[in-house]
């Protein structure tokens, strides 16, 4: 299987008049189709830069970023719903800008809104929604373009703890069910382990890959229904993975 995302020796720096900030240093990894890769690392290590590179918003200074996806969807830290648009008009923003705002697309978006419990909020303003609902609306906005690669930049960090668990369970479930290839960036180890098939551990700035830890739960091997992100947190293997990644981060980060 050809990887959907392939990074080869990628380096990137930010340039300021007084200094140069080396963000990524000869970074290489790849993501296979259907994989859910979680990237963890100390804060400020260049995780968001990495996503901007994969998304094509930045060009690498060295090395190569190869993307074999038809469309890439990006989900930012905050929902950034536009207050002057209704929830439906926010969700349809991508197709609207790509000029394929057809009736079928609108129907698909409406179906997603009702499937994710936002049916009665289609014409509401973003400020009328709770944090979790806003995040779901933002996910639908990303999914409306039918991306086959999803990039999630700490999408739950702006939420309070309880909502965060609920929404990550929710959204993790949605993505797993639809078998999307996804790259999640987070500084929360539990979140990474509960959502990912594989956790890539980055060092501090300039970031390089310290470890790539495949995540597998015994439960998933004997049933067809995989563990939900919340159930994973209670699975016996969870603590082992947590300690392993924590140690990698502390010793090499």
């Amino acid at each position, binding site marked *: 299987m050809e990887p959907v995302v392939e990074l080869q020796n990628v380096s990137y720096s930010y340039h300021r008049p007084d200094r140069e900030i080396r963000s990524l240093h000869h970074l290489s990894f790849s993501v296979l189709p259907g994989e859910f890769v979680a990237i963890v690392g100390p804060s400020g290590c260049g995780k968001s830069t990495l996503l901007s590179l994969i998304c094509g918003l930045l060009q690498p200074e060295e090395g190569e970023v190869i993307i074999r996806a038809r469309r*890439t969807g*990006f989900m*930012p830290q905050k929902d*950034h719903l*536009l207050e002057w648009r209704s929830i439906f008009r926010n969700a349809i923003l*991508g197709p609207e*800008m*790509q000029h394929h705002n057809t009736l079928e697309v609108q129907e698909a978006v409406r179906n997603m809104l009702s499937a994710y419990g936002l049916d009665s909020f289609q014409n509401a303003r973003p400020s009328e929604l709770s944090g979790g609902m806003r995040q779901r609306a933002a996910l639908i906005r990303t999914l409306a*373009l039918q991306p086959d690669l999803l990039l999630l930049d700490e999408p739950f960090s702006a939420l309070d703890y309880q909502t965060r668990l609920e929404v990550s369970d929710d959204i993790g479930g949605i993505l797993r069910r639809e078998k999307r290839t996804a790259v999640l960036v987070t500084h929360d180890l539990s979140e990474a382990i509960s959502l990912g098939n594989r956790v890539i551990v980055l060092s501090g700035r300039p970031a390089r890959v310290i470890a790539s830890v495949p995540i597998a739960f015994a439960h998933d091997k004997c049933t067809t229904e995989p563990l939900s992100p919340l159930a994973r947190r209670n699975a016996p293997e969870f603590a082992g993975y947590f300690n392993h990644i924590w140690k990698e981060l502390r010793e090499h980060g």
Partner: protein
Amino acid sequence: MDKNSNTISPGQKAYLEAEHRKHLRIRLGRFLLLFLFLMLWEASVRLGLLNDFIFSSPTRIVRTFFTMAEDRSIFLHTGITIGETLISFLLVTVLSAAAAVLLWKCDTLAKILEPCLVILNSLPKSALAPVLIVWLGNNIRTIIVAAVSIAVFGSIITLLTGFLETDPEKIKLIYSLGGGERDVMMKVMIPGSIPLLVSTMKVNIGLCLVGVIIGEFLAANRGLGYLIIYGSQVFKMDYVILSIVILCIVSALLYRGVGVIERKVGR
């Protein structure tokens, strides 16, 4: 729905009544202030404390108004001033919005022009008026240009600053959803700057009125500014004070007008 939404609790009723009384008191206070001021003015003139030749008086102003209303000259002067103000306001709004968008798109140009904008903005524009008369003549063009020059530079700076404060994350979002610079402008920057645009308009309508009056002081034979200068030169203070009273009303109405626009776009 709350089952109590139709019946008002005694506490809520008392609160509403107190609010209503407060409202009435404020209205009454405003009316009394105006009434007392006019009474005091009129009485001082009648008692000989003030010279009505210099200070005019409410009754003299009303009489002057009706005399001038008979030959319609007061409506002509007021209409000219309002018309000039609206034209220059429209020009300022269009010019400053267009210039701010252009400078937002072209960062280098904005940096090059920044010192010019700052100097032109802080320059007392009344100093330009005599130059404008020589260049453009003793006519309405001078007045409009004077009014536009007073408001336009500050307006460009304010709008550009607002545009540049557009959340970079929102811009990134537009690009990640496959939009271009045009989409950033139409979907995020301009809709997000509507409140700023309206508050700038509120400032501009006042500044345009100032500019028009200054222009009329120097280069007009009609309009309220002209009437003020004419009145003071021929020592007819009734003209001057009447013009000022009308100006107060006009500026309040124009400000209200922008307020109406604000409520329309606020929805």
